[in-house]
């Protein structure tokens, strides 16, 4: 059950050598420091262009059998399109995350990378989402609409019928793409 409503879950666990584990941990600490200082990394900006992702995580883990990179994400749509978009839009980001992992092809050409992820993804045994029928775009639009609606509500109270009707119609026109 890897899908719920509009959402798909993907989980991939990739073995990696000790040196790549150390490299990733150092890179993740550096990215975290940048984020805490309010500075945005290029990989972060590029990843946010992928507007069908709600959450994506890359986590290094040390187990008795070795070191692994755990990748998991929740996104809208089909897994193949998701992986392809990742490879094409965040090419350098993907290299930065998986280049040293064992057996992972580079993101370009897409076919080999896509085949690797599709082959290695683990079946999901139980999946839950709190808002299954809403996509990432729908959630972002709704949150923006909520703020704009609150601002309009504050403005409406003192207006007469004609002025409030004009304000409501203007609100609907301005927010057409969010509704």
């Amino acid at each position: 059950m890897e899908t719920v409503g509009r959402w798909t879950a993907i989980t991939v666990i990739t073995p990696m050598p000790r040196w790549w584990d150390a490299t990733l941990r150092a890179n993740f600490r550096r990215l975290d420091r940048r984020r805490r200082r309010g500075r945005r990394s290029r990989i972060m900006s590029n990843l946010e262009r992928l507007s069908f992702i709600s959450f994506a995580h890359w986590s290094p883990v040390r187990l008795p059998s070795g070191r692994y990179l755990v990748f998991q994400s929740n996104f809208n749509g089909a897994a193949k399109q998701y992986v392809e978009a990742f490879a094409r839009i965040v090419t350098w980001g993907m290299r930065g995350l998986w280049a040293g992992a064992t057996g992972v092809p580079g993101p370009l050409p897409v076919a080999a990378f896509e085949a690797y992820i599709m082959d290695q993804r683990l079946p999901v045994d139980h999946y839950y989402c709190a808002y299954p029928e809403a996509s990432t775009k729908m959630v972002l639009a709704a949150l923006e609409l909520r703020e704009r609606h609150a601002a309009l509500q504050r403005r409406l109270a003192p207006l007469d019928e004609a002025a409030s009707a004009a304000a409501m119609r203007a609100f609907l026109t301005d927010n057409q793409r969010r509704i």
Partner: protein
Amino acid sequence: MARELCVLTPILPDHREALAAGLAGLPEGEASPLARVPGTHFARWVLAPSLRPPMDPGRETAYLVFAVEFDHRNATAYLEDLCRRLPEEAGRVWRHCAGYPGAVDHLFVSWLLAHRVDPGFSIVAFPSATVAEIREALALRARLAAFALAAQRFPAERLRQAWREHVGAE
């Protein structure tokens, strides 16, 4: 602010099938036991059948992955809430893992936290929105869509009443 937790617990030898059957038997959607923990955005249980590098001939160990995005102030608070709200299901799932403390209590929370995966690197599309805020915003969006349709039929003097009916009082 949405936070994440990922836990990998080793599955006891010969328990994989029983665990898979137990997970397959859990109800889905809003009947999922995980729906009983308010503030859960997404959650999953995944069986990782074998974790060892391909060139390593050593013994294979299967793992249970539990991954969740939540609104609680930290992972401990989330797991304590999970213990309170689904003690039976949590016990039925994790009793198949090595080191399960035998009861869903504070020792269980400590045991899961000891198997936590380092957070690493994350991207979150709506980091500051809680589940309650998202659901409320989606419901408002649906009401506004209904109002937008109705508004086409109404003259200006009826619009305010229609707004109250569809969207809510100012």
